[in-house]
């Protein structure tokens, strides 16, 4: 598992750059991760990220877009606007969580 340093944070990541240890994450790091994929985080972004973190803590799995919208109350349309093209993957990346594997 590669170890890398991002803006002073030492983190463990997988081949695609997703954090492999959710405990290494904090909101400060989220901003750094977001910059990596060209996003500047607003409160709206953070609402989605925080839901994903809280849901992961209880479910042990990264929520799908459908779950973020039905359980977290953020419409899918808005998720696409905030995290263009690949919202599920991007939110997970910024939240320091594994990419959702709901699709098999």
């Amino acid at each position: 598992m590669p170890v890398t340093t991002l803006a002073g944070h030492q983190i463990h990541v997988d081949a695609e750059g997703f954090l492999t240890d959710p405990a290494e994450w904090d909101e400060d790091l989220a901003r750094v991760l977001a910059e990596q994929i060209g996003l500047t985080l607003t409160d709206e972004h953070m609402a989605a990220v925080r839901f994903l973190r809280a849901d992961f803590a209880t479910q042990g799995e990264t929520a799908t877009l459908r779950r973020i919208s039905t359980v977290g109350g953020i419409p899918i349309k808005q998720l696409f606007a905030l995290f263009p093209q690949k919202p599920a993957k991007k939110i997970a990346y910024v939240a320091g969580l594994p990419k959702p594997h709901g699709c098999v």
Partner: protein
Amino acid sequence: MQKRLLVLGAGTAGTMIANKLRRRLDVGTWDITIVDRDDVHPYQPGYLFLPFGTYSPKQVTRSRHRFLPDHVDFVIGEVDVIDPAASKVTLVGGRELPYDYLVIASGTSPRPDQTPGMLGAEWRRSIFDFFTLDGSMALAEALRHFDHGRLVVHIADMPIKCPVAPLEFTFLADAWLRKQGLRDRVELVYVTPLPGAFTKPIASERLGSMLDDRKIVVEADFLVEHIDPETKTLVSYDEREIPFDLLVTIPINMGADFVARSGLGDELNYVAVDKHTLLSKVWPNIFAVGDASDIPASKAGSVAHFAVDIFVDNFLEHVAGKPMTGSFDGHANCFIESGDGKGLLIDFNYDTEPLPGSYPVPYIGPMKLLKETRANHLGKLAFRWIYWNILLPGRRMPVPTLMSMAGKTVPTTTSSTPSPTD
């Protein structure tokens, strides 16, 4: 006191469970009851072939009771709600079925009502599904009159049962159109919410290049928001538009509504269970087996079959008050029809993606993994007989229950380093 096992759903998983457990549970101490809404058992993989006239409806349905053993009580009725605290199930109409142990095997079904515009004026005119018997039959009729235009094959969202079925349909449609001499007059488009042809990288690359070879356009990362029936257009959440003349869609798949009504479902009505034992995460006397559960495996008959093998032994331990020693690995084994009398086979589980090789015997086969062969196609066709005669009655299949790495090769070259935005 007689113990009561109640099984909800007499489909692939429920029927196998009733057969296997009836042989293992003493008739003098255990009653087994199984509920389904009707007495027609469909062979769902056959729906793929109906639109092309390969099978007739008669070949893909049998009565459910023919596959159930003696001393199993078959109740025909619609499940209304489970009361897990009181250990009882209520059917529509009010009949109550108390249980000591419950197995939820109610599967998953296509829900065209979940996408605005899908059930509008164009449903069954230019918009079809083939995940239901009547949908597949209606599509057969529509294809007979289709001779030019844009044929769009579309997946609304994952997970769906048999995740390779839409690819197979696309390959079969391409071959069928060529045979009719119509391929030049038809634009074939494959629309998926996934980043590529399939969920796992090695298979996705292989299947993706098969789509390219057949000049099938792939629209990836497309999550439909609604369908505009007037302009016959798919519209995504990020406002991309895909027009169609004939749309073959896989609607959102969802578990049974009674699961949600009973407070047991996630956002798609799937029952939360331990992925190795299939025991409910909440209730110690409820299992969910087959498509109805939330395990991160493909929703497929093969998965149901391998899971039932593990479940049956575990169940006997569990009811005897012992720890369950079997652990399901998510094993799936799916044929992929690719047209012109050929097919591929994939074999994988929770941890190992589909790899090339041979199956079930290393180096010999006779089936080849991730490769188009005639033997794989014949395997797929033979499966209908195996389903009715071996699988449903719960007889032993000569293949291992847990996935095996024997015969598989792990490709050494990996494609370019991916990034989170790929």
